[in-house]
């Protein structure tokens, strides 16, 4: 029967179209983009070969390093927030709400499916100062505090961005981690309880070590998403005030499409890709070391 499942013509018909589209849209452009890094120009004015100029410019461009710093800071804060609060949520689901957690899970998950642009505009209005005092400032006012101009300084804007991205994703990480914790056998938990482990002790010594694999995948997924953050920022602050909340993705986009510098834009995109790879590899390696220790 091997020849039926090994039919070359059938394989070509089934796999061909997908491979063709994938190659044309993903693989070729990635290589092409690498090629752009040694050119300068755009489709309208044409391209000139500049060698490694883009890379030397990249190394000396303070805006790039600001963007890298912002990207890393944002990724670190939001990943820690998403995974940590998500983990607390999953513990709440499993150990406190138990069977009745379904309705809470479903409600808290809801913001995950909302379009980022819609959520960002909603948060702009929630944190607004003028002309309408938004919900957050109204609450601050009712406790006697002064309204805060949330989008007036880089630090405040960063806070709003982080709050929004954590708000919209804790439902996701709650469910993701919940699925990991539920799989811990009830017998294991019961025998730990008989040995006197309760509350945080149970979580620290039994639940946490057993849910490390799912925590790891949550961290990797989160860091990969946050390093590539784009929608949230372009819709919420558009990188402002000034360049205070401008990540690499946004800087790449502006360089390429506002200033028409395709070569330099591609070089920034390459830097972004390398940062993503390095961080993922770093997490993988450091987690493996931890696992062998434990």
């Amino acid at each position, binding site marked *: *029967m091997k020849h*039926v*499942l*090994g*039919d070359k013509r*059938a*394989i070509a018909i*089934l*796999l061909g*179209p*997908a*491979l063709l*589209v994938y190659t044309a*849209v*993903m693989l070729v*452009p*990635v290589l092409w*983009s690498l090629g752009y890094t040694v050119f300068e120009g755009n*489709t309208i004015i044409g391209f000139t070969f500049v060698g490694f100029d883009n890379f030397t410019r990249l190394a000396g461009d303070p805006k790039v390093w600001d963007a890298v710093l912002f990207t890393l800071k944002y990724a670190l804060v939001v990943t820690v927030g998403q995974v940590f609060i998500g983990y607390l*949520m999953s513990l*709440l689901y499993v*150990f*406190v709400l138990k069977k009745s957690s379904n309705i809470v*899970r*479903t*409600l*808290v*998950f*809801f913001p*995950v*499916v909302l*379009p980022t*642009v*819609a959520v960002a*505009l*909603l948060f*702009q209005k*929630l944190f607004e100062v003028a*002309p*309408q005092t*938004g*919900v957050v400032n*109204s609450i601050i006012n009712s406790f006697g505090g002064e309204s805060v101009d949330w989008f007036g300084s880089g630090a405040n804007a960063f806070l709003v961005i982080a709050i929004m991205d954590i708000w919209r994703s804790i*439902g*996701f990480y709650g*469910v*993701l981690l919940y699925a990991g914790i539920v799989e811990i056998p009830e017998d294991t938990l019961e025998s730990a309880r008989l040995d006197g482990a309760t509350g945080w002790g149970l*979580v620290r010594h039994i639940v946490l070590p057993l849910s490390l694999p799912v925590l790891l*995948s949550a961290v990797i*997924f989160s860091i*990969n998403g946050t390093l*590539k953050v*784009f929608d949230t920022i*372009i*819709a919420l602050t558009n990188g402002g005030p000034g360049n205070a909340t401008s990540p690499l993705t946004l800087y*790449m*986009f502006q360089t390429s499409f506002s200033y028409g510098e395709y070569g330099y834009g591609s070089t920034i*995109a390459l830097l*972004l890709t390398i940062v993503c*790879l390095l961080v993922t590899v770093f997490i993988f390696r450091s987690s493996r070391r931890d696992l062998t220790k434990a």
Partner: protein
Amino acid sequence: MTTSTLAEHAERTVPPLSPSGRRRLGSRRPGRIRAKLAKIPLNLAVVFILVITVYPLIWLLLSSFKTNDEFVNGSVFALPETLNWQNYIDAWTTGNMGQYLSNSVLAVFPALALIILLGTAAGFALEVMVWKGRNGVLLAFLVGIMVPGQMILLPLFTVYFQTGLSGSLWPLIITYTGIGLPLTTFMMATFFRSIPREVFEASTLDGASIIRSFFTIGFPMVRNGIFTIALVQFFFIWNDLLIALTFTNSSALRTIQVGLLNFTGEYGATQYGPLFAAICINVFGTLVIYLALNQRVMKGLTAGSVKG
């Protein structure tokens, strides 16, 4: 957390409802009451979480019915005085949300159909069919999950610009298909793994070609998986901003996300009511799907991430 474990044990031993529907007297013992009291802070925490999650959305809906006067003079917490549907009419017509919505539908659903058809076929070829080099091809597909969108923007933009496709929705359909394929192919291969090869071999004994048995047997057997993936991909593509922002060059081609992003700058800056109405229109589609299919959406989205 010790209180919660206490409460936990209490809850575990709470007797089930008696046939009459009332709790048995036993639940009134003092220990039970203390356990109930101990649960109050936790219950408050749960309520707090729900309020933080749900209130902004309720506020959004209420605000979409307010008039400009109510925004300027009223409290943000006030309920709208009337159900002012004019905001929705303005957002739909003057704000062009109707046009943007139809653009989104026209770009997303063809792409979704292509992703499912091509991705399932590729998953079948990579998992069920037997040939050399399929692991290499699967690995090539996996690379695509990692690559940031920024890496492919400029070359694709150049191609679409020079071939003149930029004046249509085709760049979106093509790019969405290409970006959706890696995850779809990979997950479909996983679904086909659970079906024994003998099923397909047996069907070909009756004289059907392998391609025919893919469509008549393979496709229906992974129906559930296809449905899940279609949901996941729908949310990814429908909510996409980067691709839609880059490859649409005229306001007539904007998708609903790009349209809403520009709405604030062009029209919504002074028109609060219509802006909130436009956000509601944008949210409405995903809301309906989530209300109807929430369990599958939750499973699908989290499964997609772990595999990716």
